[in-house]
């Protein structure tokens, strides 16, 4: 509770800081060298210079007697248009910068306990910045990890909250799929020796800082394409405006330069031009907020295009382990009898499967865990790969559970003449056919029945898969199980397709096959053997708990190591594109109303009849043009929140989505400015800014 409040306050403070910094930066961005990067706004910028110069020129040439206040007003609003655009970008960037600053603080002043060999406990204290690839370091409780590395010895719990924001500590150990450590994180318990895997400046932390600062932000292909279209339209409208003057000359007339600049700015797609880069940056930040680091903007965009998602069965679709689901007694044995025996046999079994038997017995028959008295002679028989069974020897009574064949053989060793229940075989078969695992339970030489161990779907996975379906994304389950098991789980979870008996190579081949068919494939992986597939996938999300190889191969990193995160990543990718498209449509649709404000105003002097086209009944030519330009300017800050947050996205078919968005941003884009310009015109006249 306290923590939350503190967080809120922190956020507030950060927000005001962010805004202050953005205000400062947006003025800095007025440098021509920065402005030229955005062709649409650069043209507005030039226009602002032109009208300002025109104002100064008319004032100076008449010795200050005529002040063209109309031109002055227009100039002010043109400058504001440019500044608003810069502000949007600066605001988006500064959010990332604030995060980067906290990361940078973390990087400072780390010392490492450098050692010579992994078996030595001797170390020397050296600054982290002096470490090179291959150096070995020791870290004990409370020590900061000095750099990205691979544990070569030991196991430890590590607090990675500084990087991931996740407060629960994670276990890292040598030789497993969870052997990598990140510089800047803290060891909580135990001792590890780790080998440094990156040189200074190339570490994960460095990369992350670079990413969030937007220093390496390259425009994504789609952003480039949209920029081209917007630039083409801008050039076209520049030409449309520029040819107005010769046409007027033909009529032996001429247009005021302020009018022409105003017409151009009103026509140019300034709204989207102003917000375009902010949308992209904000998208990356949104990913960061769901704890996903994208190593390139390209991959974020690709995420929106993904139409096939490969999901590992274990850990993603099902819980990590199989769990007891049913007790199936043989004829003559009650279910409760079987459950009691099953519970006893599992008391010593510390595996999740074993525990699930105890839990099921309790749930079904309220069988409490047995308390052994002091007189009880209890001997636990652990599971071994050889015997393929485990159980308990309690006062000479052997209660066991295990694989069917082993159990049958086992009871025969106890009593040569024991009777194997007739229906046992069919029970075992039926369980296996469903894709579940049968375990046979015995009390001494008597076989009691079967425990069905079943894959249990993760909570909420069905709904998520349904969402993917709605988006038109095909889900493919990857599993090492046999086809029967795989099919039954696939059907239960609602995945579209599955790959059974999968090996690491088959994963890679499958991705290639889908890609050849024109699909865009996303996958999540953590193990070293996932690395080739991760690299091949269009969107490869590596889990933070994964190996260094996997993390290198992916183009995104999920700091939470949550395999279903892929859905959120796809959503963010789509949202960026939708926001861009919607604001582009809105921006262009706005032009209709601006035309009805500006064209009659410009031409009614030349052709009085044109005044009839002033359908908004705006007060005067100068008030119409000024109102259009003011609307054009203030719509930018008004849309900044939408640009940063993204257009709301709900999983649904493309056909439905387009209908909604066309209605809101297309039709809305046509209607809204008519109302807006009319209102501004009334205010402008009331304030006496134009007559």
């Amino acid at each position: 509770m306290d923590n939350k409040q503190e967080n809120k306050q922190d956020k507030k403070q950060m927000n005001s800081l962010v805004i202050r910094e953005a205000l400062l930066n947006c003025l800095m961005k007025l440098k021509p060298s920065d402005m030229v990067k955005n062709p649409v706004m650069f043209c507005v910028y030039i226009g602002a210079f032109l009208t300002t110069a025109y104002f100064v020129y008319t004032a100076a040439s008449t010795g200050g007697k005529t002040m063209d206040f109309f031109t002055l007003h227009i100039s002010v609003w043109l400058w504001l248009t440019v500044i608003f655009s810069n502000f949007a970008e600066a605001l988006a960037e500064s959010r990332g910068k604030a995060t980067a600053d906290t990361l940078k603080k973390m990087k400072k002043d780390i010392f490492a306990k450098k050692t010579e060999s992994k078996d030595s406990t001797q170390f020397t204290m050296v600054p982290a910045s002096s470490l090179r690839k291959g150096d070995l370091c020791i870290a004990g409780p409370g020590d900061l990890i000095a750099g990205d590395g691979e544990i070569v010895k030991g196991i430890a719990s590590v607090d990675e909250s500084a990087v991931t924001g996740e407060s629960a500590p994670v276990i890292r150990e040598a030789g497993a799929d969870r052997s990598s450590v990140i510089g800047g994180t803290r060891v909580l318990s135990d001792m590890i020796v780790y080998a440094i895997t990156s040189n200074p400046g190339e570490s994960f932390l460095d990369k992350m800082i670079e990413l969030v600062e937007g220093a390496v932000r390259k425009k994504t292909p789609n952003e480039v394409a949209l920029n081209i279209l917007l630039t083409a339209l801008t050039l076209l409208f520049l030409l449309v405006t520029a040819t107005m003057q010769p046409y007027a000359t033909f009529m032996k007339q001429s247009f005021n330069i302020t009018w022409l600049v105003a017409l151009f700015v009103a026509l140019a797609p300034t709204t989207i031009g102003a917000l375009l880069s902010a949308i992209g940056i904000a998208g990356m930040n949104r990913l960061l907020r769901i704890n996903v680091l994208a190593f390139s903007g390209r991959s974020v965009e690709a995420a929106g295009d993904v139409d096939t998602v490969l999901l590992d069965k274990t850990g993603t679709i099902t819980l990590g382990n199989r769990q007891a689901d049913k007790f199936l007694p043989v004829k003559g044995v009650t279910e409760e009898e079987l459950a009691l025996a099953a519970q006893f046999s599992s008391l010593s079994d510390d595996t999740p499967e074993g525990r699930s038997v105890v839990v099921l017995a309790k749930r079904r028959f309220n069988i409490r865990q047995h308390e052994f008295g002091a007189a009880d002679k209890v001997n636990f028989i652990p599971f071994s790969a050889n015997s393929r069974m485990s159980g308990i020897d309690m006062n000479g009574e052997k209660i066991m559970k295990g694989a069917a064949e082993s159990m049958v053989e086992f009871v025969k060793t106890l009593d040569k003449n024991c009777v194997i229940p007739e229906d046992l075989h069919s029970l075992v078969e039926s369980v296996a056919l469903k894709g579940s695992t049968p375990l046979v339970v015995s009390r001494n030489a008597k076989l009691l029945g079967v425990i069905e161990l079943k894959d249990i779907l993760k909570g909420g996975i069905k709904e998520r898969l349904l969402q993917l379906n709605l988006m038109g994304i095909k889900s493919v389950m990857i599993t090492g199980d046999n086809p029967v098991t795989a099919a039954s789980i696939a059907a239960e979870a609602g995945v579209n397709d599955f790959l059974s008996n999968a090996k690491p190579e088959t994963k890679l081949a499958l991705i290639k096959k889908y890609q050849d068919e024109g699909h865009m494939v996303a996958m999540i992986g953590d193990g070293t053997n996932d690395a080739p597939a991760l690299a091949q996938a269009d969107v490869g999300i590596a889990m933070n708990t994964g190996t260094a190889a996997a993390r290198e191969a992916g183009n995104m990193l999920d700091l939470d190591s949550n395999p279903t995160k892929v859905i959120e990543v796809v959503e963010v990718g789509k949202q960026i594109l939708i926001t861009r498209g919607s604001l582009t449509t809105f921006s262009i649709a706005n032009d209709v109303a601006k035309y009805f404000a500006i064209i009659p105003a410009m031409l009614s002097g030349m052709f009085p009849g044109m005044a009839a086209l002033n359908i908004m009944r705006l007060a005067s030519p100068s008030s119409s043009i000024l109102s259009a330009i003011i609307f054009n300017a203030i719509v930018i800050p008004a849309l900044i929140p939408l640009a940063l947050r993204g257009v709301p996205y709900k999983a649904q078919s493309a056909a439905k989505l387009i209908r909604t968005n066309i209605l809101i941003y297309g039709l809305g884009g046509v209607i809204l400015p008519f109302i807006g310009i009319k209102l501004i015109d009334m205010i402008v006249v009331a304030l006496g800014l134009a007559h």
Partner: protein
Amino acid sequence: MDIKVIAEVLFFLVLVLLVAKPMGNFMYLVFDGKRNFLSPVMEPVEKFIYKVSGVKDSGQGWAEYALSVIAFNILGLIVLFAIMMFQQFLPLNPQGLKAPEWRLALNTAISFVTNTNWQAYTPESTVSYFTQMVGLAVQNFVSAASGIAVSLALIRGLVRKQTRDLGNFWVDLTRSCLYVLLPIAIISALFLVWQGVPQNFSGYTHAVTVEGAKQVIGQGTVASQEAIKELGTNGGGFFNANSAHPYENPTPLSNILEMLLIILIPAGLIFTFGKFVHDIKQGRALFYAVFITFAIFIAGAVYYETAPNPAFAKGAAVTNISAKDIPSEGKETRFFGGASPIFSVVTTVTSCGAVNNMHDSNMPMTGFIELFDMQLGELIFGGVGSGMYTLLLFALITVFLAGLMIGRTPEYLGKKIGPTEIKLTAAASLFSGIMMLVVSAIAVYVPGAAASTMGSVPHGFSQMLYAATSTAGNNGSAFAGFNANTGFWNLILGLNMFVARFVPMILVLMLAGRFAAKNVTPVSVGTLPTNDALFAFMLVMVILLVGGLTFLPALSMGPIADHMALFSGIR
């Protein structure tokens, strides 16, 4: 509005609906190399032509295809220019016509090669029968075929995957002529002869009218040229008066046939496209987008041409005109009612340029519609072939804008539209519009250029804008009253026709090459549907918005200013 006029409009629209699909299906068979009912007759001819000319039906990449198109057309240009310059030494010249001024000849040669058929010359007194038949008529066929070929290359680029093969230009050209253009032209020419159109090599007839005035009546191979003039959306008349001349267009029946011929191939090709992409609905969506816009334009033109001119109300006291009379200047009485405005819209939307009335005499808003038709990019059916590829360019732009709104990299027919594709699409689709604006602006500063117009009034401006628009749109129709035959106008309009035809063509072929090389993304519910009514609606909106935003300022200073003055009474 008169019920007869409404019936006339509906009758024509229904005719278009009836012929478009069968025509499209037939052309699909032809252009996909499948057997059709003409195969028994034409296949031997086709094979013979390939054998003689050494053409092998091997696939061409975009560059090879483009080179073939350009080389063929440039060669055609040189030959046509030479024929005109030497026509006095060539046969079939009963009037003994001399070579035209070189700039006029060049303008005319470009005009026919680019399928524009802008006529700065008066045919009766400028070109011999030989020039008409061997020069101009040949280009009427092959320029249309070139347009079809380029559209086929783009369609193949969209359909095929991971290949560079866009088909073979020489094969497409030959098939267009043999299976489509020639048979229909021959049958139509015979029909026209039946309706009274002359087809002879005679010298001009000298007659004395009832009032005793002397009159020279042109003769010649009118019918054969008339048919291809319409069918190939060429529009270059045998006579100066074009289809308003009784020898070119004698009866209401010939008028209907000519309008239908103009629209036949452009409308059919949209269905051909649907067949090629294995989704008839894709073609249907594009067709209805175009058809409905077309119908709206016709309704507008017919409305203004059959409603009284408000100026008549004021002038009624001094002339014999009553306030209820409809505007009749520049129209043949045979083509009253809907016949003239329908023809005007048909000819301007399709880049044909044939006229059966003088556009300059139309009401301002009809003039607006005619100009706007051309300025939209000649894609509301558009020219033969060129309309198809321009329409596809706008479909790409629509997909790009709308596709983003569904959260995927925009794709059309499974082909992703990346930076290079959008660059080519934007350049190709906006090029002719840019030329229209630039050429009319340049002319303002050229001394004497404005003298070809009515002067510094909106109507004078409309005439100049019309000339730049008609040539850049490769339309060729004229706003009568504009004196096109001057050195400056012949050169600049010639240049305009040339670049506005071939620059987009090359860009389209580059685009086709890019698309052909791409893989196809399979369709899912996450794909933007491009074969439904909503897409057709968006396409129309994008076409109107881009065209409107580009040209409304200019149009406001021409026909719109005229209209507002006329109807508001304020000058």
